[in-house]
């Protein structure tokens, strides 16, 4: 799954870099992420086991109960994308026999392994002791870990999350997931780690999670203000990082979200716009809802195309890939396993099409957006197959214009700046033109 990112692009830009502005919370986040990579890199020497798993529907709290260091291959891929290392990794994987047509996250990961497992921060990452294959919302995950297993012979345990085919989570689905947790996942975690499962420990982590989740939701919903103090897509990528990855359930994460929420509250009071890499956005001209993951290889250029035009993303579905908390879900310490099951089943890409469309329409309304922008990702069938219907339905139901651009997560060959800029410009000019006509019509009366 197209995963949240955890760090400001540390790309040295060619010009003497204009001072990159960051919120305090962003600095904090960066430290957390780097520390985690270091921990991961040294896990084996410190006698810790490593478990790899995917972002959507990840069982971080549970895995922590067994003292595993957590590695998230999607995050590695996107970090490598931001650091412009993914292109070569993908080519390496293709040379190793992978097809050009398939998801580039997988290829970036496999390519990294072929290149000696050197992680985004330059430290060598350990081979996982366990692949926790929870394939929420995407079939490619399954192949991904099968491929890793084929190479490294890692122990693998499957957690199958059924799809919300008819738009709801049934009891049978919940039972199925809970049963898998009890009968295969937890016993395997125990066996591999040598640590006995302690449900109270799990409850404790989940308590932390729920608190942080409250704060995250407040941050994301601050975009309902005018001007919006945050960018709910590019900026949100930094906000969701800890929550969606190895930190959910830790006190550090809770603290991070506390700091973050306070910062954002202050921005709301001061009526400030979001901070972009080019500085604070002073004039909010367009408010958009975005569907689909961002492109990582040109993340800053991409963001700049929006910032330059005064466009702010007020809500995005991508900020929900690791949990749709704003619709009410919280980890529940009183029903730990059931709540984990609920969490897995409720992830954004595990929702069916009518649900996804409803959610977007709701965002457009609640966040008073001018329209919907879809960034369609070549890699990701889970997100992309059907987005054009989404576009049409949303236009029909909200009366707001929608636009469509295409790129890829981490394959630089698929990011055509001129092409995307052309479409974005046309889209913004169209909204502006429509507005001025509407304005003129009002004035004429």
């Amino acid at each position, binding site marked *: 799954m197209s995963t949240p990112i955890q760090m400001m692009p540390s790309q040295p830009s060619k010009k003497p870099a204009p001072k990159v502005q960051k919120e305090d919370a962003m600095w904090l986040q960066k430290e957390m992420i780097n520390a985690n990579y270091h921990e991961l890199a040294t896990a084996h020497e410190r006698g810790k086991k490593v478990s790899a798993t995917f972002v959507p529907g990840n069982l971080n709290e549970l895995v922590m109960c067994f003292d595993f260091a957590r590695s998230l291959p999607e995050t590695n891929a996107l970090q490598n994308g931001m650091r412009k290392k993914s292109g070569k990794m993908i080519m390496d994987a293709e040379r190793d026999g992978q097809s050009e047509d398939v998801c580039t996250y997988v290829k970036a990961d496999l390519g990294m392994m072929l290149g000696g497992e050197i992680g985004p921060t330059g430290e060598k990452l350990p081979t996982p002791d366990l692949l926790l294959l929870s394939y929420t919302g995407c079939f490619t995950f399954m192949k991904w870990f099968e491929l890793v297993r084929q190479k490294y012979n890692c122990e693998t345990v499957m957690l199958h999350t059924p799809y919300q085919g008819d738009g709801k989570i049934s009891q049978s689905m919940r039972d199925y997931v809970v049963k898998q947790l009890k009968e295969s996942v937890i016993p395997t975690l125990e066996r591999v780690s040598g640590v006995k499962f302690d449900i109270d420990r799990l409850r404790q982590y989940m308590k932390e999670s729920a608190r942080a989740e409250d704060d995250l939701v407040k941050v994301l919903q601050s975009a309902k203000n005018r001007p919006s103090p945050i960018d709910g897509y590019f900026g949100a990528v930094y906000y969701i990082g800890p929550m969606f990855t190895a930190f959910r359930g830790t006190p550090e994460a809770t603290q991070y979200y506390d700091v973050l929420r306070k910062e954002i509250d202050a921005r709301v009071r001061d009526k400030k716009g979001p901070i972009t890499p080019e500085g604070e956005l002073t004039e909010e001209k367009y408010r958009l809802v975005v569907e689909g993951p961002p492109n990582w290889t040109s993340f800053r250029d991409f963001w700049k195309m929006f910032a330059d035009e005064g466009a702010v993303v007020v809500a995005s579905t991508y900020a929900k890939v690791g949990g749709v908390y704003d619709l009410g879900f919280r980890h529940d310490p009183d029903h730990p396993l059931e709540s984990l099951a609920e969490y897995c089943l409720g992830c954004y890409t595990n929702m069916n099409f009518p649900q996804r469309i409803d959610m977007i329409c709701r965002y457009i309304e609640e966040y008073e957006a001018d329209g919907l922008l879809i960034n369609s990702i070549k890699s990701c069938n889970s997100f992309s197959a059907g987005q054009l219907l989404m576009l049409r339905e949303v236009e029909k139901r909200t009366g707001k214009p929608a636009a*469509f651009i295409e790129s890829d997560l981490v394959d630089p060959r698929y990011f055509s700046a001129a092409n995307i800029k052309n479409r974005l410009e046309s889209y913004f000019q*169209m909204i502006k033109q*429509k507005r001025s006509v509407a304005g003129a019509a009002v004035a004429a009366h």
Partner: protein
Amino acid sequence: MRCFIGIDLGSTTTKAVVIDAQQNVVGRGITNSRSNYDTAAQIAKQEALVNTRFHLFREALAKSGALNGSLEDFLAQLERDFRLEQFLVQLSDLETTSIRNTEGSRFGDASKAVASALTEIFKRLTTEAPELFAPGAKRKSDFFRDIAGSRYLAIGDEVAKQGGVRYDMLCNVFDRSIIEVENRVYGDAISANLLAALDRTFVAMPETASRGDAVREPIKSVLDTALEETYTVGTGYGRARLPFSKEHIRSEILCHGLGAHMMHPGTATVLDIGGQDTKAIQVDKHGIVESFQMNDRCAAGCGRYLGYIADEMNMGLHELGPLAMKSTKKIRINSTCTVFAGAELRDRLSLGDKREDIMAGLHRAIILRAMSILARSGGIRNEFTFTGGVAKNEAAVKALKDLVRENYGELTLNINPESIFTGALGGATFAYRAVVEEGKTVEAR
């Protein structure tokens, strides 16, 4: 006179339109896009301004009544003579350039022979030039590159056979020199060329010569009228490369929408097939864009596809349509990949299919893709306007008509003979509005 100019810098052709203070189209110009965008834009504009002068001649001469009855013939002759003059000027430039390009060590011992072959070729070219511009003469295209090119190669082949020079060398000199020549702007030559043309016309139409002064007078006065470039708006794929400020640039989507509306005020849906992209645009009754869709990153099925086919068949672009119209059998072509178009063509030919049938199949395949993009943008509404260069192709138009009828029933389908200028017309209209409705003045470059 105040002129509002729109320039559409496309991937294959560059178009310019001039409108006057009453929003009448007074001039159109077109040239092939080339490696130097600035030149392409300048030449297109210059052509449009020349065309404007002809428009003014017509008005002035009609008013003076000097050519009662033979006005149109006279102007047609004058235009042909003017083109011939222009052609001769460029031809002599090409000759000088070519000779220069043979010097040095490129051809070693052969360079003398090449030079004398060149002299012979250009002698013949110059002699036959008037025929190329005779009334009713068929030309492969209207661009110097194409006219001079096809004749040069044909004559070059003969000369090579007779003179013992290698044909390859002659081709090589041409390829090299034509680029230099076509990147020169012959700004000052226009008045001179016109006056020279006028003399030719009097020779060609002796009956008008007797009224020489009465004719010359209004023409002179038109030539003396300054054409003030009040405001220019640039659009098209290459617009970002135009040396204009942002205020002077509009997205081609808006320009095509507005241009189509100006040509056919009832337009609701616009299809534009250009060299590298296909756009479907929905506009409201004021020509304001409501939504749009473009082909995705794959350029399959766009105008350039026809270009490849024409190259493969060694035909002119405008000959493809008529050939396809001769088809009697339906052949289904599934791939519109531009690059492999040639291969598919050969595949079919070797299977024994007839050229015209394959051509018809190819045209239908292109239009099928366009139909999908139209469906993506919300379908076809009445009235439907087809713009862009491919609208000049009768087989494409026929396929479109068929498919529209099959899928949407009877609709009004507008195809303007000047459809290729739609984007530029939209640009010119934006220029007009900027000044007249928004009170803008030209910004310093």
